[in-house]
């Protein structure tokens, strides 16, 4: 099939970018979307033009590295899947496909389709953990966790940290990402001891990073490749409100 691409090219974070058109004549419908980019890059390299920079690694939908905004949707037209799991059979012969990087002030562009998502790591560093040192754990079966609780925690923990939720949100809010971690650890008994501080600190860091406010449109959950539920945002709100009402942190 023939595909017309409009790809965002940007040399680095200090240089303005623009959409550049490319045409591919020999695309197989069995190719993955990223393999189509490999083919594009091969032909660009042979022509002496610099290949398109894009983030990708596992190419099986779990590492969360790939991050393309395709025809106005994070990870493209397929729901419940990452860019690397998208195949060309989802498109038609002759289609024009617009490919951009994640757009959010907190995710600055590094080059072409590649953005900096370190803000997510800093949010986790602010409290997305249980404070337990190696060696000080009790036997794994000492605390019983009902299956329904374990399953719910797993639903939240499935987040791959790709940032599609932020890219999908008109406010570039990171609430779905933050809520998935807060929720996972708030549900499990292991996370209970620190649940208040966690919600407070992670939300504070999210705000400090410049992510926008949540207006609960639900776009994040629809575009999430792991279909993380909005229920977690509800739980985060509850956790955060509860923490604030009883907070020992008088500064804020």
């Amino acid at each position, binding site marked *: 099939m023939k595909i017309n691409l409009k790809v965002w090219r940007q040399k680095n974070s200090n240089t303005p970018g623009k959409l550049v058109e490319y045409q591919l004549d020999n695309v197989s419908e069995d190719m993955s979307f990223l393999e189509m980019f490999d083919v594009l890059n091969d032909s660009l390299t042979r022509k002496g033009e610099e290949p398109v920079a894009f*983030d990708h690694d596992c190419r099986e939908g779990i590492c969360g590295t790939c991050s393309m905004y395709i025809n106005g949707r994070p990870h493209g037209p397929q729901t419940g899947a990452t860019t690397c799991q998208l195949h060309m059979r989802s498109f038609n012969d002759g289609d024009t496909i617009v490919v951009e990087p994640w757009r959010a002030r907190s995710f600055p562009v590094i080059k072409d389709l590649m953005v900096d998502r370190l803000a997510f790591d800093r949010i986790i560093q602010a409290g997305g953990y249980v404070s337990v040192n190696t060696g000080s754990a009790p036997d794994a079966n000492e605390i019983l966790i009902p299956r329904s609780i*374990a399953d719910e925690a797993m639903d939240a923990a499935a987040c791959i940290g790709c940032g599609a939720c932020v890219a999908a949100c008109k406010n570039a809010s990171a609430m779905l990402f933050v809520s998935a971690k807060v929720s996972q650890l708030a549900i499990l008994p292991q996370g209970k001891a620190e649940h208040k501080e966690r919600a407070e600190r992670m939300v504070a860091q999210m705000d400090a990073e410049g992510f926008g406010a949540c207006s609960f449109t639900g776009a994040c959950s629809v575009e999430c490749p792991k279909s993380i539920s909005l229920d977690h945002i509800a739980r985060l709100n509850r956790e955060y409100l509860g923490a604030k009402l009883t907070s020992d942190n008088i500064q804020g």
Partner: protein
Amino acid sequence: MKLESKIPEGPLAEKWARHKFALKLVNPANKRKYDIIVVGTGLAGASAAASLAELGYNVKAFCYQDSPRRAHSIAAQGGINAAKNYQNDGDSVFRLFYDTIKGGDYRAREGNVHRLAEVSVNIIDQCVAQGVPFAREYGGVLANRSFGGAQVSRTFYARGQTGQQLLLGAYSALSRQVSNGKVKLYTRTEMLDLVVEGGKARGIVVRNLVTGKIESHSGHAVLLCTGGYGNVFYLSTNAMGCNVTAAWRAHKKGALFGNPCFTQIHPTCIPVSGHYQSKLTLMSESLRNDGRVWVPKTVEDAEKIRKGQLKPTDLPEDKRDYFLERRYPSFGNLVPRDVASRNAKNMCDEGRGVSKTGLAVYLDFADAIKRDGHKTIEAKYGNLFEMYEKITGENPYETPMMIYPAVHYTMGGLWVDYNLMTTVPGLYALGEANFSDHGANRLGASALMQGLADGYFVIPYTIGDYLATIGPADKIPVDAPAFKEAEKKIQDQIKQLLSIKGDRPVDDLHKELGHIMWEYCGMARSAEGLKIAKQKIQALRNEFWSNAKVLGDAEEMNQALEQAGRVADFIELGELMVDDALHRNESCGGHFREEYQTPDGEALRDDEHFAYVAAWEYQGEGKPEILNKEPLVFENVKLTQRSYK
């Protein structure tokens, strides 16, 4: 070189306890005087960095990914083994040890493997405490499943995403230490050289992948937790960025490389669909519990299927060959990975493979669906079937799945002693990057166990012994000549890569290497083929350095340049793998030499001549490496021929 494995004396079950007592300790107040460099943030790296920081050491952690959470450990599906015996089904530390030694076809060290089995139980405790949501029973206790042909249920799992959850657990512990100021994180940073001075590892030279800047980092010890080298085959289940560069450059600085030819080929992967294929996707091994593997009985039928003239569902039972069930009546479709893979290859070699390429066999669920119902099968494998359909566009409920073996894991790696130290003092290798625990074949659900065992429960003890011996003053600054020389060498190499200005993109050269390795050093190897491979690799090396095309600049984000450095190292490693495969005149585990097989086509070991670890010593550019041997001593298990008939 004399290899000292440093396996402690005494009865097997007491070795680790005795050793821990014999190791020197670093006073708690002195730990902050030591700097430790950890390269890689997968299960081994993240767990080591977090645990060492908790003890009070200053840690610098490096990864090439944009976040430590994306290391390839995240992609492991099946589970993690631990000898908890929660199921009361006869498991024990000794049984896990025995299964691992036997599964590795008796090419691993007894002492190391027993320690691995011992600490396996602590890993589960630790992960649960971190909030890892393992699968549970309705009553709230942890669930287990049997995996990879084990006769006990000792595998813990978190849906089909066990690696992800364990890595996120280790990542959270690491993140906590970052916020405590004990770990400094360097993401999008690739190690390009090891600095050795005065016979000790002193630090590393890295490239900042965003700015292209070359920088040095000095420390008292360096831990390589950089994973395996499966991408030498180009197509594998590894992530695109997985590479051997850190380990290989350490090898060139004096670290011996153990058993490089031991690679694992996983039988149930989605087949290649075209020349543009960039990676292969693994389908969990658990599918073989219910799926039946077959190909058409005749080449003619296979040809019709390949051309699309015949549907597999229309081929009557008597024209199908369920070859695993036929050849291995007692284990059937559940034979170990190496056996299943080799048989699939043989069928395709005979011309009976399916799919357009002829490089696939069927994995059929029709009988299971008839027997247990659509619902039951969906509950068990729904997510896998969905993943398969996403990739192939075919519905496995209606037409049989197609599978083909793919490179999955490398048992070989940097040689380490019992303390996980390489032959360069102060340089350690953990997880898949070392060679130590899986022998010639790794069992399912054991990779996660080993990565976390090394990082959480082994290195925190053993590293202290070295640090206490050298003392805090034994460190050199980054402006020392050794660092400056290494930086210069790296800058020169980068300049050289950018100045070749040839015709072929690096990816294309990498593909060619992959074809050579897969053809001659893959599932089956022969002396004749390996000799051809060696010549081809040498020719490819010349082609690479004279005709590679790397565009862009050194001082910017440049993915082609990153890849070029990695492929250059893969080419050199490929040659060593071929040498290793050629010298090992026996078949064992994943290493199958066609000349050495039993009359019915099974791997034939030669314990008299090859019960050793082959540890290769670099001699300089273009010179053949020297083979060192570490004999393997078996005092607790009896060496037997594996049989699955």
